[in-house]
């Protein structure tokens, strides 16, 4: 039995009785034990995973109703709460935090008999795009261990890419699902804002972030989405998707569709290998019967500055609750005055989080809000108008997911502004609430390149069809692990 199958193939095999959940999950755990010492995708492994699989096999044998996952091993980014287990956000500040509830996505997957093999690594509180800012050490790219896997859902993308699970859930605030998916050669999907409940996702920048699936195929992505999307009374920002089936008609193709290539995302600073991959992708789309032309999205130039201004502001507020009074680590209050206690307790935040908190205090402050925060909101507003305008004419927009190839661990960590620019192609989807997906497309010098497709709000289903069409033209080499 090979681990190297897709999630849908797994379901098929278990249903046909060719493999058991226990076999597959045991093998998965074995794989984790073999490779994760180097990759460091996981922060915790679920010690009960194999037992859980055995239970599901029993259920299958006894002819009881079994959920659609049939014991499928799934990994979960460690900023999504699973009841009674640790959720650390890869931060020392929350190293002991045990959530008393399941995130909505978790309860939905539990109902479908998914098995959570473990919690995956991330940049502390999801602030980063390399997973180097994890308080517990970086994850490594399975295609080349010297390289970053992208982030912040780096652990999730690595675990899917390295067969340590069949699919994963990450969170995408400015590309945190799509960026590592692109760097690790897997599929990463950021849905329309509100399509997936954020209840149980520990907030970083709540007005723009979404949980998103990472999987080895577009169909697997649609399969996971089917189970976790939809209205949730626990999250007032969720939208009603009328229980759409995202798998149904996924092979519809894109003949006759109009695709815009976002000019501002293939300009200055783009790596030549990424550029050539993008050109190849365009010809593939044309080959599939789509019409492609270059379009302009003027506000993209300001999108990264707007993105960091908004996220820092929201993060500064969202992370204010970590004052160590109600939960946290052992640090008694005796002898301290309130302000000095809190300030000392909050030293457990890592340097990147600390920097963004300072930014988050600065840009919305009464003296500077007009110059930074308010302008950022207005850029967001205008960018949304621009992209809405484009979607009147085009079905999809495309761009490379990341304008550069994966880089080496340590290469950019000290240059925050250089890191900013890696985000330039992904933040637009978050600022405008539009769905976007990264599809693995080429390997250049042994490193993956992903192509990103955007669709209009609530067109998640047709977006997955377009992604599937592109995927069908691609055959990538195997991950060298």
């Amino acid at each position, binding site marked *: 039995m090979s681990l190297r199958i897709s999630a849908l193939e797994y379901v098929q095999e278990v249903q046909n009785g060719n493999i058991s959940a226990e076999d597959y999950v045991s093998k998965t755990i074995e794989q984790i034990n073999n490779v994760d010492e180097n990759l460091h995708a996981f922060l915790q492994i679920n010690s009960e995973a194999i037992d859980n699989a055995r239970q599901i096999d029993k259920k299958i044998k006894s002819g009881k109703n079994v959920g659609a996952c049939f014991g499928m091993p799934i990994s979960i980014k460690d900023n*999504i*709460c699973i009841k009674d287990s640790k*959720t650390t*956000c890869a931060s020392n500040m*929350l190293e002991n*935090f045990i*959530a*008393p*509830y399941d*995130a909505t996505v978790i309860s939905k997957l539990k109902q479908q008999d998914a098995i959570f093999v473990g919690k995956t690594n991330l940049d502390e509180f999801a602030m980063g795009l390399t997973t180097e800012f994890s308080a517990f050490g970086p994850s490594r790219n399975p295609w080349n261990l010297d390289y970053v896997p992208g982030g912040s859902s780096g652990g999730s993308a690595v675990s899917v890419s390295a067969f340590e699970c069949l699919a994963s859930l990450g969170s995408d605030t400015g590309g945190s699902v799509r960026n590592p998916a692109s760097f690790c050669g897997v599929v990463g999907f950021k849905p329309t804002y509100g399509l997936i409940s*954020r*209840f*149980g*996702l*520990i*907030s970083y*920048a*709540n*007005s*723009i972030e979404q949980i998103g699936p990472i999987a080895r195929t577009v169909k697997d992505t649609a399969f996971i989405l089917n189970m976790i999307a939809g209205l949730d*009374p*626990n*999250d*007032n*920002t969720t939208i009603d998707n009328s229980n759409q089936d995202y798998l149904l008609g996924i092979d519809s193709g894109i003949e006759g569709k109009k695709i815009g290539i976002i000019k501002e995302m293939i300009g200055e600073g783009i790596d030549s290998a990424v550029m050539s991959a993008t050109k190849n992708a365009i010809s593939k789309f044309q080959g599939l019967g789509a019409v492609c032309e270059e379009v302009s999205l003027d506000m993209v130039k300001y999108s990264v500055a707007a993105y960091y201004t908004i996220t820092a*502001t*929201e993060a*500064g*507020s969202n992370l*204010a*609750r970590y*004052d160590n*009074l*109600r*939960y946290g680590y052992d640090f008694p209050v005796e002898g301290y005055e*309130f*302000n000095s206690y*809190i300030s000392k307790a909050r030293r457990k935040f890592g340097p990147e989080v600390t920097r963004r908190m300072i930014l988050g*205090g600065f840009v*919305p*402050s*009464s*003296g500077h*809000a007009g110059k930074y*925060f308010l302008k950022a909101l207005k850029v967001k507003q205008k960018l949304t108008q621009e992209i809405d305008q484009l979607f009147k004419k085009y079905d999809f927009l495309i761009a490379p997911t990341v304008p550069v190839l994966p880089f080496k661990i340590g290469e950019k960590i000290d240059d925050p502004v250089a890191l900013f620019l890696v985000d330039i192609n992904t933040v637009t989807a978050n600022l405008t609430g539009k769905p976007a997906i990264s599809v693995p497309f080429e390997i250049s010098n042994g490193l993956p390149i992903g192509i990103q497709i955007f669709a209009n709000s609530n067109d998640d289903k047709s977006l997955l069809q377009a992604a599937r069409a592109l995927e069908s033209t691609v055959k990538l080499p195997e991950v060298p692990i």
Partner: protein
Amino acid sequence: MTKIGLEIHCQLTNLESKLFCPCKANYREYEPNTNICPICIGLPGSLPRLNQKAIEKASMIAMALNCSTPEKIAFFRKNYFYPDLPKNFQITQLNIYGDTSIGGLGYTMVGEKKIRITRVQLEEDPGRLIYEGSSSKNQTTLVDYNRAGTPLVEIVTEPDFENPKQVREFLNILSDLLQNLGVSDPSLEGAMRADANVSIEGGNKVEIKNIGSFHDLEKAIHFEITRQESLYSRNIPIVQETRHWDDRRKITISARSKEEELDYRYFLEGDIPWIRIDKDTQERLQKEMPESISSKKDRYVSKYGIPAQVADVLSSDKFYSDLFEQSHNEKNAKEIANIITTDLMGLVDTREKREQSKFTSKHLEELADAIQSGKITRNSAKNALYEIVKTGKDLTQIIAELDLGNVSDESEIEKIINEVISQEPQAVEQAKKNPQTINYLVGKVMQKTKGKADPKLTLDLLKNKIK
């Protein structure tokens, strides 16, 4: 001229649940930290779940204060660190991106004086701090989050008050109004709080915070006016500042320090979309609003001929006006108004007494009927009511037990009249000359029957005898 403005905080105590979670809105009967959940304690991963009724009730308050009500409302975060604030930000409202608070400009009348309302906003109450230990050295701060997330309506007025008396009158009116709307019970401890700002002619505006009760609010305003006038008379400038009310010393103290200069970094709460309250919804809310106090008063006067003063007392207190509404009909309305305002109000004048009392609107109805049909006298009715409040027993039972029924047997009354006539020859003589004085003899008969003789019958019989 002295200018006083108010910021009043009022809890929506009559709601079932908190503003963003299903914990109990009225937290008062809970042991510390037993009325909490992941949302109101701000656990990571939790999200606010806005209470629909809180919006509706707050909107009704805005309407009752004649405020404009926008079709879309928004929530903002007010960011500051304090141990009673579980998320270290408060979800509140603001008008920085257009009018998005639950209520905009409005007014309310205090007698002839118009008090303008600046805005009405809906927000969450913080938890409560309890200080243990005597000196600042061994002080321990304990936090109880039961109150955290209680729906709170903030009403901000323009500085339209000229003296503390107007402030008191306004607060009474507001308190009655909130009670009448059924949104709050202002008599509950901490349900209504107010801060004030005060400025005198030629001086800057001074804000006073930390005022525990309405009683202290009046004192604080008095103190502040006197302080400012004294400064002014000595040519000392009055600086714009925030002062705290010192509850023990009954003075205001400057709160100015570096730490106080907070920057709240207000911004939109992304976890709550803007809420649409379209014209249809607003009309529905308007219809669902209970009748206003002034309309009730007018109705009592015009429809039932209840005297204006009685109607005023009756309509301004929801408890009594509800009772009146439940028990009256066309015929007995005046009698019931009378029973409530002259007898009942004295018997259940505190919250505890109201809660312990056993009477129902049915009792009032029966009582009024008994009086009107001459079954018992007003005087006996008063005694019966006392017993009803205490025991909740049936009126007939009480009449029997206490022997309160009218003596309307002619022969019995005649017997007593004869007694009185023989004992009071002088009065009889006088009554013959001056019929007006016959009432003295009626009174004597009443005395002998402990007020139970049918007064009309007694008078008729007496007149016959003395003629």
